[in-house]
């Protein structure tokens, strides 16, 4: 296998802290191997900046294997970059060409304050989960694994919804800064399964109310979230949440 290398021009959002106004800075990188991941490319940049005595670019990451949901920036206007169903850490430089200019911005939304450079505060999503993204289970003897029969298609749908890693790309890409794909997936994952049924009304009310309180916008069915979601979560989950919320509002 031959390794090629490319040169890039990067325009990166630099912001000292939450209060700083922030602005773009331009960097040039040469000899970037196309086998590198996007984050490794940023590592190379940061080494270079450190050697020059400059402040490295702050960005979030953890697992670097597409499962934790920590990473994420907007590359040339698209959250997580141009590859569909790919987290930023799983995006490889072979998808870019020699001489490309990449504009790299943090995920933006009123509910996601920028902490530094590309690092944002996504704790609003955690608070939505705290409001109702759980099932209450009393302790006792270990229940039998298959004591509650669940039809396979339902289990599949719940698993699809559960694959959300909470990266916030849906919010970042939504023209309305809405978190409905995230909340819809979390509500669906639990309300589809029998274990989640007892609390479904309370859950839908609490999670939607918290979502609104955190300052996320209103969904107008633009479908941008679905298009950028690295886990391919379907807006069918938003439709399900709409039903759950109405049922909870009028029938509970």
């Amino acid at each position: 296998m031959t390794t090629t290398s490319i040169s890039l021009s990067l325009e990166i959002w630099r912001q000292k802290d939450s209060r700083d106004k922030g602005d773009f800075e331009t960097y040039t990188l040469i000899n970037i191997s196309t086998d590198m991941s996007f984050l490794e490319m940023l590592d190379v940049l940061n080494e270079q900046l450190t050697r020059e005595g400059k402040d490295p670019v702050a960005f979030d990451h953890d697992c670097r294997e597409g499962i934790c949901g920590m990473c994420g920036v907007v590359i040339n206007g698209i959250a997580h970059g141009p590859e569909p169903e790919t987290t930023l850490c799983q995006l490889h430089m072979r998808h870019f060409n020699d001489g490309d200019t990449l504009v790299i911005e943090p995920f933006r939304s009123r509910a996601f304050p920028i902490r530094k450079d590309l690092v944002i505060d996504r704790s609003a999503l955690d608070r939505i989960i705290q409001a109702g993204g759980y099932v209450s289970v009393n302790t006792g003897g270990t229940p039998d694994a298959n004591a509650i029969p669940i039809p396979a298609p339902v289990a599949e749908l719940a698993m699809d919804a559960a694959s959300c890693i909470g990266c916030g790309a849906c919010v970042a890409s939504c023209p309305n800064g809405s978190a409905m794909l995230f909340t819809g997936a979390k509500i669906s994952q639990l309300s589809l399964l029998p274990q989640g049924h007892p609390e479904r009304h309370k859950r839908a009310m609490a999670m939607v109310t918290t979502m609104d309180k955190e300052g996320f916008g209103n969904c107008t069915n633009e479908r941008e979230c679905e298009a950028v979601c690295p886990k391919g979560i379907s807006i069918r989950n938003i439709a399900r949440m709409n039903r759950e919320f109405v049922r909870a509002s009028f029938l509970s």
Partner: protein
Amino acid sequence: MNYKLTWVTIMFFIHFVKSSIGKKWIMACSGCFLLLFLCSHAAGNATLFNSVSLFQAYSDQLHGHPLIIAILSKILFSVFVIHIVTGVLLFFQNRSARSSGYKVQKRAVKNSLASRTMIYSGLFIMFFILAHTDAVSFGDHGTIGLTISSLFSSPGTIIFYIVSFLILAIHLSHGFWSMLQTFGINHPKYNPLIRNLTYAIPVFFLLLFSAIPLLFVI
């Protein structure tokens, strides 16, 4: 006790209406009502394909029931107001939820023209309706056949009407699908049908309504 229960119900409703999903439902339900009105309006207008006198007869029939007309027109007006006010409110709320825009503005979804321009197409339709009701609905219904014949004798009016129908079709193409999604109707079994209807319904109304002013040209 009873008062308290009523109060709880009212609070619940207010909470629902104020929530993000509640507003979605308001847009969808009012939109659904307006779509049904559009159907009945189209059916009435279709009499023009037969003759102006049949249309006149239909209008006379309709206005022979002043009470029904009075109630329905008030309801229709209220639904319009609800749809417009909620839509404008959503527009401003959403604009402030997206703190600041990106330097590179790009959409991941193709064909997002209709969804991006809902507020503008909607406001245009509002102006069209104001102009249209001013010219037609508030006139003398006894001579409505003559009113529209003279209205469509001017090419400027015809162009204005057809452009408006085009914008209405664009508005509907997002609105119809969006309404079903809000109602929670999104299922692989029905999605292909819904996708086809999303094109078919706007095109149907566009052709039907545009044909009417053209009737007066030929």
